[in-house]
């Protein structure tokens, strides 16, 4: 990494660490910061499979929900400490990822078909969570409020902010590693051309299963964090289409397959949300402002896929790439 890049990252990290203090720890600012970092983290989990490896999923909520339910069931129904349940939830996410990956990739599903089958898996999990007794069905699961760091519950939301920051930084480090490592190079090769990747000695099936397991593990970690912060989950929150779509949007809008894409995407998403919310507050005629934000995201998605296949990060990259190309001409 170049010196400037290192400095920028260090500066960004310090700014993120100081951010809650800058706003005097106001709950609004802290919560907004949490939402951005949390969305960026989930987006990165999608990006690792969908962006870096090109295995685009429409059903990532299946991993999010698995993580949320696994830790919550262990905690609420079996009395586990959430800190102990967390790694189990992560392992469950990895297992579901490996399972779905094995089935789908063994059957040779690619591209749109893979995207659609993940959507169906998430829907199947949602219906199951709605129907089986140990998830308490559509009632959802309530976690007893008992704020104490030992319970992975905090009275001051600032701790959730820092927890999300740690996860987000870890996920960025993982993405950075993917741009430099053998595993990452293999994923990029698979994304670009699977036949050529196979010819060059890459076991594409194994690598794809691995990346989906890794992605699933990360996403499940987010699921547990969500459950512990909001102390309630139900089948639609955990496995709903909206969650899957949000992860995809965050990553696509910021730039799929780039390190900082999900972070930028999450920033854009919540910026738009806040603006439309303000607008909704200012104009009484607008009763519900939330759909406005989603309309904007939908339009951005169409524009990005239509005109900027590398995401908004592509704008910068393209500009930067030009002089290099000329240098060789």
């Amino acid at each position, binding site marked *: 990494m170049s010196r400037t890049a290192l400095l920028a990252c260090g500066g960004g990290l310090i700014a993120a660490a100081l951010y809650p203090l800058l706003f005097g720890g106001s709950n609004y600012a802290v919560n907004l910061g949490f939402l951005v970092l949390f969305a960026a983290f989930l987006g990165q989990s999608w990006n690792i499979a969908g962006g870096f490896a090109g295995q685009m999923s429409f059903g990532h909520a299946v991993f999010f929900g698995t993580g949320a339910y696994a830790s919550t069931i262990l905690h609420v129904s079996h009395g586990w400490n959430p800190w102990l349940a967390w790694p189990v939830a992560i392992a469950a996410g990895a297992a579901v990822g490996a399972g779905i990956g094995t089935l789908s990739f063994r059957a040779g599903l690619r591209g749109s078909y893979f995207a659609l089958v993940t959507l169906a898996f998430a829907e199947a999990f949602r219906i199951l969570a709605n129907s089986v007794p140990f998830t308490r069905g559509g009632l959802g699961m309530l976690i007893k409020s008992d704020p104490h760091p030992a319970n992975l519950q905090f009275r001051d939301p600032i701790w959730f902010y820092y927890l999300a920051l740690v996860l987000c930084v870890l996920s960025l480090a993982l993405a950075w590693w993917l741009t*430099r*490592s*053998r595993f990452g*190079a*293999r994923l*990029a*090769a698979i994304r*670009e*051309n699977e*036949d*050529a*990747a*196979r*010819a*060059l*000695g*890459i*076991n*594409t099936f194994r690598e794809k299963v691995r990346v989906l397991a890794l992605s699933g593990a990360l996403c499940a970690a987010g699921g547990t964090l969500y459950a512990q912060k909001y102390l309630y989950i139900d089948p639609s929150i955990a496995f709903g289409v909206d969650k899957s779509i949000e992860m995809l949007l965050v990553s696509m809008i910021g730039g799929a397959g780039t390190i900082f894409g999900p972070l930028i995407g999450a920033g854009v998403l919540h910026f738009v949300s806040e603006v439309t919310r303000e607008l909704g507050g200012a104009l009484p005629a607008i009763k519900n402002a939330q759909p406005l934000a989603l309309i904007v995201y939908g339009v951005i998605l169409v524009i990005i896929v239509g005109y900027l296949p590398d995401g908004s990060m592509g704008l910068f990259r393209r500009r930067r*790439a030009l002089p*290099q*190309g000329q240098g*060789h001409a």
Partner: protein
Amino acid sequence: MLEVHDLTKRFGGLTAVDGASLEVPQGAIVALIGPNGAGKTTLFATIAGFHKPDGGRVLFRGEDITGLPPDRICARGMVRTFQNTQPFAKLSVLENIMVGAWLRTDDRHACQQRATEIARRVGLSDRLDDMASELTVAGCKRLELARALATEPRLLLLDEVMAGLNPTEIAGIVDVVRAIRAGGVTILLIEHVMQAVMSLAEDVFVLNDGRIIAHGPPAAIASDRGVMEAYLGRGAAERLLGDTAHA
């Protein structure tokens, strides 16, 4: 190095490769020629593990590799290139070659060094940072070659690396192929450019309708009646051979 015995590949009712046998000795450059649609690429793909054969055996360095998947075959030291080049379009030339080089090392520095060295050997040194999608046809052919070489093969299967190139570019690739062989890599190539076959190959197999119809040194193949018939049809072959007999 490579022995193929009675290899057969069928797609539905169509028999693309029909009991083909061939042999590639260590250190040789062997050519596989034949008219369009003869099944050359299918034979290649079946040898390299992209299709499961319906019959026959493939022995590589004395071991039976029939039906192994392509990545395992590549790991054992046999790698193919694609007739329609398949670059990783959005990766740089260096990154493309590194994908091959990662097969033999997990150290980034060593991988990069090896890829740079191979780029130099195939003449891509000045394009390392370009996107693969920016390369010309000739550049793509070189990249295809470089990526395959980076996996450190013992046997290289080259599928029409000269098709679509102009004579200068062909001469350049011929030199590169010679240098690869001099480096100890055995080569089996499919080629339409006969001038290149004649100057490169020691041994030629001719495939027609999925069957090997002739085998021998290039000069003998060039005047073989059966080969001419396969390429030109019976009448034309008669006339051509008749003409040379009178001259």
